[in-house]
């Protein structure tokens, strides 16, 4: 009798998985005793006489998402969950059928949408302000970008080539696009100083983009005849094969300046240390935060994260571009303000909660859940 009362409290609900493109039903069990060892989910639909196994429900969350390819939107599905206890098995049927639907708006991304609107507005406002008052914009000095001319100049004086090493991500990465901007600047200087350049690529799409970028830079420098497509080479799509290839070229060609730009992984230090061993001046730039310490230790200059992404604005010095950087800075200030409010709210809420008043903590937790 006691067992019956205990098990009869278990309820199972089947409902449309929220914020998805349909084809998925979530099954959730409530009031499940801790002694359950296993829970299996069975499904049937109209026309079926028996239930078929759908999957295993987690006994930590008592939640199962049925995203089987046979699930059709708008069709009712009935679920039964078998709870395995040490000495018995209890079957509980969902109180109503689950029906999958596709949603037109993902509510879980509301905070992202709000931030996107605020941030985009700030950037657009500052772009407009920059158009009106180009002189009113200040952007701090970025030594690594200022050192490009010095590095290429040194390479020219030594009569050595300049190397530009792309990272391992493709053209879809923002860091790779920023690297192309920096390559354009480097290639223009190289063309002006009439010194050789070698650009190594991990990705063939980046290689073709690099070829166009260098070609354009040589044209801008008034030296289109000096452009050689064969100096922008593809090496391999294997991480350490690429590393070995670049290291081999560094050791044989002994470049005077090396630019390591893009997203790097474990090969970052191997490349930077080899560059250091051949005596080259090295300017690195990456958005891979894990690799920044390695570059800081081994390179002469480093573009840290967002500095790299601001490179095109810094190099171009166009008011509209600088305005977008200014807008991004204000976006950062807005975010810092939100974080600050959150810290104060959470801290005061925790203090008040320990004193017996949990109202502020509830507000804080609701805000956290929203984000």
């Amino acid at each position, binding site marked *: 009798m006691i067992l019956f009362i205990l098990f009869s409290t278990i309820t199972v609900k089947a409902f449309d998985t929220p914020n*998805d*493109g*349909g084809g998925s039903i979530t099954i959730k069990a409530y009031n499940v005793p801790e002694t359950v060892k296993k829970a299996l989910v069975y499904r049937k639909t109209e026309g079926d006489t028996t239930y078929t196994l759908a999957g295993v429900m987690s006994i930590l969350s008592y939640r199962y998402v049925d995203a089987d390819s046979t699930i059709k939107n708008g069709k009712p599905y009935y679920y039964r969950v078998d709870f395995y206890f040490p000495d018995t098995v209890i079957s509980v049927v969902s109180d109503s059928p689950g029906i999958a639907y*596709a*949603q*037109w*708006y*993902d509510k879980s*991304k509301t905070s992202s*949408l709000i931030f996107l609107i605020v*941030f*985009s507005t700030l*950037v*657009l406002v500052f*772009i407009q302000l920059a158009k009106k008052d180009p002189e009113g914009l200040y952007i701090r000095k970025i030594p690594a970008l200022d050192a490009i001319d010095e590095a290429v100049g040194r390479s020219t004086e030594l009569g050595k080539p300049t190397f530009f090493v792309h990272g391992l991500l*493709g053209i879809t990465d*923002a860091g790779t*696009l*920023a690297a192309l*901007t920096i390559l*354009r600047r480097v290639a223009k200087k190289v063309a002006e100083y009439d010194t050789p350049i070698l650009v190594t690529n991990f990705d*063939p*799409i980046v*290689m*073709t983009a690099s070829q*166009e*970028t260098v070609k354009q830079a040589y044209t801008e420098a008034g030296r289109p005849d000096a452009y050689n497509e*064969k100096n922008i080479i*593809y090496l*391999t*799509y*294997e991480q*350490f*094969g690429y*590393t*070995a290839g670049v290291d081999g070229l560094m050791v*044989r*060609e002994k470049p005077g300046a090396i630019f390591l730009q893009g997203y790097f992984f*474990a*090969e970052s*230090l*191997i490349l930077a*240390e080899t560059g250091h061993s051949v005596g080259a001046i090295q300017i690195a730039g990456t*958005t891979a*935060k894990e690799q920044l310490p*390695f570059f*800081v*230790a*081994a390179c002469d200059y480093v573009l840290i*994260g*967002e500095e790299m*992404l601001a490179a*095109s604005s810094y190099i*171009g010095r166009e008011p509209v*571009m600088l305005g*977008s950087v200014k807008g*991004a800075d204000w*976006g*950062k200030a807005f*975010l810092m303000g939100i974080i600050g409010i959150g810290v104060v709210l959470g801290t005061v809420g925790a203090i008040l909660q320990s004193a017996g008043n949990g109202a502020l903590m509830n507000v804080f937790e609701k805000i956290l859940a929203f984000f």
Partner: protein
Amino acid sequence: MLKKQIPLAITFITGVIIVITFFIPHPPFGRLQQDALTWYSVIFGFTMLLGVDSLVRFHYRKLRRREKGWWFSIIFYGGFLLSFITGVVSEVRFGDAFNINSSFMYFYNTILIPLQSTMFALLAFFIASASYRAFRARNIDATFLLVTAVIVMLGRVPVGYMLWHKLPNLTSWILNVLQLGPMRGIMIGIALGTVAMSLRLILGIERTYLS
């Protein structure tokens, strides 16, 4: 004129659609981003041929001019032909070049993987040489770095606990408070920089990628 305007229009339309689809899970919008990545993969497959062409030409030039280290190019051609021939033969024989019993996978497992492991292993030596330079107490900043690094390194090994039982806790505090705060600041900066750059690209303000 059109050389610039058409790519800018494609970038704007694609960018706006992808941003909108991020918030709309309903078909066909929910799958558009995935579809775009599939198209990217198809384009990537074709550009790989350009990459191989570039590599073959680069080594041909080195061989023809007898440039420094030209004999490495012979090794390249040997490896390239070996991979190509064994790949084709394995595909014909097993229906899949990546079959575990194929000659292609034999060479991959016995030559390429050990070579890659060797390259990765070099990292240990490079960490030692870079650390030596970075941790030299030349000024107050480098001294702070040296002291912190010593505490963290000792706190991560049993001997650190033996020296002072609170050293692992101090290490955790350095990693989770002193280190994590600035690291998150860098992450936020990168994320915002990426959004700002994406906006510049979508709106056609950033055009350097067009050459």
